[in-house]
């Protein structure tokens, strides 16, 4: 049995047409699955649906099972204790993901004390250990810092620490390095890989960057307009894409293999979506 089984998941916001339609995928224990697609394709909605954090006016139908437990329709009183413990999430924007008025160490330690009985000192020790694990220099100093006193890369590592400290089975990462500089991105990705290994957690990694995806994941889901159009092993999808949209994405992502100055292939060369009426297009 897979760790996460998503069956026929649809999500609609209010009375608008559904954002997600009939999503199916599974994630095995310890697997790393990349979810790729352009903005507005429904990647983040998928993540929030799994986390049970969709806004109240959204309706999700279908089935999401984590370790056999059905998550759709699960009351918050039962769902909340699972978050941060069985499954957790890392968001895109490290600048705003931490409470600006609370020391970051305390925010991490709270996650420990929220889910298990432990004394203040134990939680602190665990937190310091975890901060060290995510490669933060001088954990003691970071523990007592406020979010605005840390750099973007440091903050994102604190967020990683929060997501991983209770050793969850599944970590969902929503564009965790998009807001970071390239050199910092490399470090955070390395820290993420290392700690996923250490914890043995599975990962659903959401990104629009195929290169970043290829460095973390071993399976790929390609999302287009709220549906998954292609799924498979990383290598087979990347070397032998089946859907024209995937082919287009891959072609545009290979900027390093195009002669400088020559015409870049575009997605439109491979795949043209059915025409939309002008004026209703949602900007990128």
């Amino acid at each position: 049995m897979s760790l996460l089984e998503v069956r026929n998941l649809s999500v609609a916001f209010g009375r608008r047409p559904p954002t997600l339609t009939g999503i199916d995928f599974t994630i095995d224990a310890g697997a790393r699955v990349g979810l790729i697609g352009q903005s507005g394709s429904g990647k983040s909605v998928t993540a929030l649906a799994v986390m049970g954090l969709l806004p109240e006016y959204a309706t999700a139908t279908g089935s999401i099972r984590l370790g056999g437990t059905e998550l759709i329709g699960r009351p918050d009183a039962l769902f909340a204790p699972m978050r941060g413990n069985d499954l957790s999430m890392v968001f895109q924007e490290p600048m705003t993901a931490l409470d600006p008025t609370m020391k970051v160490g305390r925010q991490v330690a709270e996650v420990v004390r929220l889910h298990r009985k432990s004394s203040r000192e134990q939680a602190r020790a665990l937190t310091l250990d975890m901060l060290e694990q995510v490669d933060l220099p001088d954990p003691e100093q970071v523990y007592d810092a406020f979010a605005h006193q840390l750099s973007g890369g440091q903050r994102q590592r604190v967020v990683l620490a929060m997501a991983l400290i209770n050793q969850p089975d599944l970590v969902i990462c929503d564009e965790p390095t998009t807001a970071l500089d390239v050199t910092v991105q490399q470090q955070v990705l390395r820290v993420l890989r290392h700690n996923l290994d250490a914890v043995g957690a599975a990962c659903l990694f959401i990104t629009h960057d195929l290169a970043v995806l290829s460095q973390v994941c071993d399976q790929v889901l390609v999302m287009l307009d709220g549906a998954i159009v292609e799924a498979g092993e990383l290598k087979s999808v990347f070397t032998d894409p089946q859907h024209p949209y995937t082919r287009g994405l891959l072609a545009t992502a290979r900027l390093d293999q195009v002669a400088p100055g020559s015409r870049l292939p575009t997605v439109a060369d491979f795949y043209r979506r059915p025409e939309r009426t002008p004026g209703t297009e949602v900007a990128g």
Partner: protein
Amino acid sequence: MAGSGTATGSAPAVRGGTASRRGGVLVRILIRLGVFLASLLVASLIIFWVCNALPGNVAQAMLGQSADPAAVRALEEQLGLNRPFFVRYGEWIGGMLTGDMGTSYLTHQQVGVQIAEKFGVTAWLVGFAMVLALLIAVPVGTFAALRRRHWAGFVTSGLSQLGLAIPAFWAGIMAVWLFGVWLRWFPANGYVPLTEDPAQWLAHLVLPVCSLALVQSAVLVRYVRSATIEVLSEDYYRTARAVGWREIPALLRHGLRNASLSVVTVLGLQLTTLLVGAIVIEQVFALPGLGSLLLQAVAQRDLVMVQGTVLVLVLAVLLVNFLVDLSYLLLDPRLRERR
């Protein structure tokens, strides 16, 4: 293999020492204090100017509109009203600093003594109303925010919208009729000092406080609601939810700390409206507070009393705004350091 060296551009790893931080706060408190004093000075000038700029205002008022101009001038001379504006202003402010707020030309009462006497009534009224409004508004506003897409939240917002439109004095009049005249639960008007009879004191305050607070809480509900909605859309709230906090605890732990900043600002503004509301409500319930004192003085065109009372009210407003500024400095670690 620590990576802080290559972390984003020019941002050093962990910056700012505690010592320099404290010094910065002190300087900024002093700056705020300076701004407060300057505002008070300008406000007092405005008040004095409005009351004294037109020559003959006071004397004319004392002698009546049909008085002989020569008599008016003579009286001005006698009271020293024909001296330059700034001399008289200086005298007024100088007296203020030594605790002498002047003496009414009409009633020969000490302005300061009168104000001190009536201040308590208004303070009780405003204080109780503020607390009651908060007790109503915080839970109701939070509820309206959490259920904003739900009919219950919609109805709550609608009710607060309605409350916002009702004049407090009309609510007071209707309350007098309903509870004072028809049901006879509470006295319809008047005031009994606390020292005389605590039970009666409280009974006489119930209706004024409730009518003031009810309308006020409508305003507050809207602020609390929008502040909460703002927090709900913040990334750190989402983070808190993602690590396992339930809605209300997440709001309390992370939301309240951040929303309190905006709520504090609002409280400052609210006190202003409450003070003004109290002036009118005192009239509805015949409470002997600052409002009644002010209106009586206006009716008699007792300008010395008017300018003294208005100055005290404006001082209260400015003082609260100053305290709000200070609380900002203390509540938000980002503000403590920046600039």
